[in-house]
């Protein structure tokens, strides 16, 4: 029962996001400014060139490659090849659009089924003994299922006819969008990497190597552009006992752990609701035990400078929910 409720809540959240998606166009975080100066189709060779921009949505910061994106809801099967070749050529807006469309389509079947299950469960309930209030709630739930069904219809139009090969390209396209500066894609890719689509990893184990080779560059780009998601992911990856992919890429170095913790702590001072400063202080004290005084001084200075230069007082929560780096904005 609890599982069903959670599933229903998750469905509700995602479908609400999808509804928003079809209401407007995709855009990236305002600070997600990256663009490629030169990108080869092999994602690991992509070169990041940070630029100032107000969003990677339709801009394409690399001159000469920005083009208008297809209208939202255009079936992916018709625009996949074009978006793919534009993404390969370094068009950040096309890469973002493609990775998010693929992400939605990869999840579509499950979303549709979950909504159908919820609908069946509701329709199976006996209404004759419900109180007036219960009936009111029941009707509201039915309306919600119907509304989600309508939104899923839009998603069906987007995803119908998308081939298995197209869907299997989600991870490399997420990686490409990340390398081209989409901060949401970067956070998701750093956190999950090829495990974001485990089934496709069976046919493409080389994606593990792609991840190992590209992660550091994304970490650097994230810190450079003041991305709290990246700092938070690093904080987790350096935690004792961390066992995710990112923790396998970064060293177990106490100095680095302290440095990122300190940076995060500086952000928490301005946004205590996002992270508990007292807890962070405790973590910092524990991390500092393994460092010399000189190392602590050096790490503190790095954190202060980086915070001032790259983060400029931006609240920690400004870069999306920290508890799930794979939540994408649809607006």
């Amino acid at each position, binding site marked *: *029962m*609890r*599982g069903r409720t959670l599933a229903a809540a998750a469905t509700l959240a995602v479908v609400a996001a999808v509804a928003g998606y079809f209401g407007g166009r995709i855009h990236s975080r305002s600070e997600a400014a990256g663009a490629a100066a030169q990108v080869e189709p092999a994602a690991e060779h992509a070169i990041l060139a940070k630029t100032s921009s107000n969003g990677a949505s339709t801009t394409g910061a690399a001159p000469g490659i920005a083009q208008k994106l297809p209208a939202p809801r255009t079936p992916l099967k018709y625009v996949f090849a074009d978006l793919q070749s534009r993404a390969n050529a370094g068009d950040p807006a096309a890469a973002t659009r493609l990775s998010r469309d693929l992400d939605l389509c*990869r*999840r*579509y*079947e*499950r979303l*549709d*089924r979950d909504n*159908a*299950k919820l609908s*069946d*469960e509701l329709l*199976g309930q006996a209404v004759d003994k419900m109180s007036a209030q219960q009936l009111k709630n029941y009707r509201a739930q039915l309306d919600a299922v119907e509304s989600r069904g309508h939104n899923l219809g839009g998603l069906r139009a987007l995803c119908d006819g998308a081939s298995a090969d197209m869907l299997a390209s989600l991870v490399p396209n997420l990686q490409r969008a990340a390398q081209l500066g989409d901060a949401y894609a970067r956070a998701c890719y750093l956190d999950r990497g090829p*495990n974001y*689509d*485990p*089934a*496709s*990893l*069976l*046919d493409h*184990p*080389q994606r*593990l*190597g792609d*991840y*190992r080779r590209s992660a550091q560059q994304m970490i650097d780009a994230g810190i450079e552009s003041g991305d709290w998601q990246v700092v938070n992911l690093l904080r987790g990856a350096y*935690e*004792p*006992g*961390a*066992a*995710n*992919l990112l*923790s*396998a*890429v970064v*060293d*177990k170095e106490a100095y680095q752990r302290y440095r990122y913790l300190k940076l995060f702590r500086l952000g928490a001072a301005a946004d205590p*609701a996002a992270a508990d400063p007292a*807890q962070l202080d*405790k*973590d910092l004290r*524990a991390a500092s035990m393994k460092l010399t005084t000189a190392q602590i001084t050096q790490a503190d200075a790095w954190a202060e400078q980086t915070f001032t230069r790259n983060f400029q007082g931006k609240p920690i929560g400004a870069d999306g929910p920290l*508890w799930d780096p794979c939540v994408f904005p649809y607006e």
Partner: protein
Amino acid sequence: MKRSILLGVAVIAAVTGAYFVGRADVSRPRAAASINADSAGVAAPAPTTDFTAPPTVIKGGVLPTAGTPLKDNFAKLQARANAGDVDAAGRLLRDLNQCTQLRATQWKNANATDTLTRKSTEGMSAAQLRTYQMLLDAAELRQQAQNDSQRLCDGVSDAMLDSLVPNIAQAARLGDERARACYLERGPLYDARSLLKHPDSIRNYRAAATSMIDAGLAKGDWRVVDLLQKAYEPGAQGLLAGVVGTDPAQHYRYLKLYRLGAEQHRIAQLDQQLAATAANLSEAQRAEADDWAQTKLRDFRGPSTNTTPPGWDACEF
């Protein structure tokens, strides 16, 4: 409004987190240290298995006393597991699993206990004090469990820990049911850190999964049936789904078998699910799957839903 909802969620998450933080999280391995294949201390190599050949299962005799330091037993257990001793393989993977998660548990427990003991009891009501005492008792129990783990895991090298997934696979091949369920569901993703160092473990998974499925079905293992019905379901994205490929007819077939073995209180919900799945099948497909499930049911004993309640964790050792 949104902010208050977020705050509410954060508060609930914090409370829930505080409760669960100390529990030994056996469902997710935590590498206790970075994995270094060059580390000394592995006297017997992890199994290098031919996944296509049927294993020879032996009973290798008495196991070391539970809780004795793994560093002293590792080589012997590994050699016995490699030779096909199912009990040694099961013991080895469980000890390794416990050690793998020790460091994270240790760190989090220390944090949670510290927070708890620094809390002022001044002004607490009688009910609050009782709750506080219960939390303290729980912290003490966690500390005792942690001390036991420490005794077990002291001196265990990174290279030993690195052998966790191959040892789960070996125990699974030898017929350890829990290891089989865990390996089928998570495979090398169970230890993502080591996966990055050993991408070939993905190939091993593909090679091993099919024979493990066959063995599980032949043994009447409901865990395997439940994993299969989920893996075949259209939209499934796990590793097992990648091996078997999603297929509505197969999904129906395994769901039907699972339903035939279900306890009374789960039947209505499973029937609803079956009806939704059947809607995408032809009459002939459905009839064939129904027959198959009825026949196959003879190999199974006990209720399907008993070993696999909703939300069951395939890697709960």
